[in-house]
């Protein structure tokens, strides 16, 4: 069977169980599904966060995620993957991003999921704006996210 690839950028929330089922339904060749969901935190350090607003560069975000989804597909023996990234205003406790990877065995699924998330953090054109009691401010990028993404580059 061919590998299934789903990439979506949307304002609406997603249902993780439904997305896993879409990836595995009718197939008997999948032995492992890894699911990562990124969730909006209600605090950042000592600060209380009221909400996040995610801005993105639509055409580039889709192209960049697709490029890396294909890289994951060719690097690991995956039977399918899904990447769903939300944009717009997101409140604490709500989902931001979902990465699902399916494979015959767990190792490929774990590694591919981590690769995709590290990549998304450092290179996918999304920007978070944080609302707190002091007003709204753009979230600063972390150097450790760049380092996490760089470790997947083959030397």
């Amino acid at each position, binding site marked *: 069977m061919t590998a299934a690839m789903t990439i979506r950028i949307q304002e609406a929330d997603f249902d993780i169980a439904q997305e896993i089922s879409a990836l595995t339904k009718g197939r008997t060749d999948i032995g492992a599904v890894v699911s990562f969901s*990124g969730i909006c935190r209600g605090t950042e350090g000592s600060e209380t966060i009221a909400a996040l607003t*995610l*801005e*993105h*560069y639509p*055409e*580039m*975000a889709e*192209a*960049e995620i697709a490029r890396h989804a294909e890289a994951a597909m060719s690097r690991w023996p995956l039977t399918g993957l899904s990447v769903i*990234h939300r944009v717009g205003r997101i409140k604490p406790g709500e989902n*931001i*991003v979902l990465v699902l990877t399916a494979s015959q065995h767990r190792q490929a699924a774990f590694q591919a999921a981590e690769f995709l*998330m590290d990549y*998304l*953090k*450092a*290179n*996918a*054109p*999304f*920007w*978070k*704006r944080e609302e707190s009691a002091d007003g709204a401010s*753009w*979230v*600063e*990028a972390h150097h450790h*996210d760049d380092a996490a993404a760089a470790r997947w580059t083959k030397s």
Partner: protein
Amino acid sequence: MKVKYFAWVRERIGKAEETVEPPPSVRTVDDLIGWLAGRGETYAHAFETPRVIRAAIDHAHVKPDTVIAGAREIAFFPPMTGG
């Protein structure tokens, strides 16, 4: 060429996109940042620290020394914070 701005670069400049025609002496992404920074106070503010600005040509990441000839769309934005 079309130029797009995102996040605080967009906010500081006060627009999301525009069409610009830089002179031939503007060869690279870095040159373009320098030229845009000279267009007024809002641009100077947006590009005051060029090394933190990220750029993309036609939806792909590029480095500051990339030549811009032939580009249809160039985007400028801060380091990404998705995921």
